[in-house]
């Protein structure tokens, strides 16, 4: 859900960036973080809680709360709300603590 009309700000003319979330193709735009691009695509659950595996979504936007930790290009616990989106990134919803060199 991108803002179309705004009385003060303009978000026009930003280049499209393709990326993958859970192996499906999505598009973000220049200036997005991974998490902002996912929210824009209406993806709500980004990670899950450690014990009860409850869904967790975007919360603080400053890299502080761990509620958006995801697996990005094989690396777990990436703070996706402060990590700039790059072309062809492979992003996965994280389960639990995550493992180094994880395939998913």
């Amino acid at each position, binding site marked *: 859900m991108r803002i179309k009309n705004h009385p003060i*700000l303009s978000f026009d003319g930003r280049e499209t960036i393709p990326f993958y979330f859970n192996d499906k193709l999505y598009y973000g735009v220049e200036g997005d973080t991974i998490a*902002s691009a996912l929210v824009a695509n209406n993806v709500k659950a980004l990670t899950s809680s450690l014990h009860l595996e409850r869904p*967790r*979504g975007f919360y603080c936007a400053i890299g502080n709360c761990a509620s958006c930790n995801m697996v990005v290009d094989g690396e777990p616990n990436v703070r996706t709300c402060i990590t700039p989106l790059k072309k062809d990134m492979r992003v996965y919803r994280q389960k639990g603590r995550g493992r180094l060199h994880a395939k998913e």
Partner: protein
Amino acid sequence: MQKSEVVVVGAGPAGLTAAHELLKAGAEVTLIDRNASLGGQLIKQTHKFFGSEKQYAAHRGIDILERLTENLIPYERFHLLSETTVVGFYHDKVLTCLKDDRYFKLQADSVIFATGASEHSIPFENNDLPGVYAAGAVQTLMNEYGIKPGQRVLMVGSGNIGLIVSYQLMQAGVDVAAVLEASERIGGYLVHASKLRRLGVEIRTNMSIKSAIGEAHVEAAEAWRLDEDWQGIEGSEERYDVDTICIAVGLSPLTELLEQAGAEVEYISELGGNVPVLKDYETTIEGVYACGDLANIEEASSAMVEGRIAGIRAAQALDYTVENAEMRLKALDDELVDLRSGPPGDNVRRGLKKMEGLT
């Protein structure tokens, strides 16, 4: 080990002005921020500031940020480390940092912390469901990235952040169902509250959130009335059909790095909770300073003034000559007194009195 005479941690309003004062005095400054873009929370502040011309009143945060950043560029002794997270700080003024998956150490003679604050949450059923956001995070989503958090929002908290973000949600085309306020009085400036009321948004006092409803994400919210002891009243529940709940119930200073090095921290609720013990912006570790929301939760206007004072003090301690120092410090102090005058400044003034008692 890499060295920098001064390291400023955090490139928000306080960090940017502190760095500027130090550079003006002739010091070498490395400014570190974990984000790609500078400005901290200024980057999303599309509303016009209050105060006097000196604090850029009538300008929007997003424009002020540009000016503050431009101030630093011409200095040869200015180094910028963005997308860099300071992960450790030791009493001998060694910082450990993480950039591009590389870990390195940095030795400083003087360190200014302007790390800001993080938003509180409050306990209620399902408060961890996706769709429950910190209000400031929603402001970032909208104003920095141009993204709506949802279609319809329930705002919890009527301090300035709750009021301003509600208004900005409406500007972005998102419906605000209501603003809930647990106390009997609206927390923020009335000028922000009346802008919202003119748009038909109800601000409901003595009300709070009882639960978020939904399985995978927020599908509705339940609010209820509070009694004099701030306990929910059974039977007073009201349902709001919203897909987003925003939490705007205050901020906590980010003191972790200072605490790692053993700087003293005290709980002063009026200043935002655990805050570093400061005398003239210097912590209990000599040559280590704190300013902005880290020192006490306030507005960006006062953070900019505090940054300047901390910068001047740090420059003087390093034996740099600051032109007209006494006059400037006096003028900056007066600006803070101005910004903290009147009922909205009651809390901070009380808190700072307590702080004075400690040092």
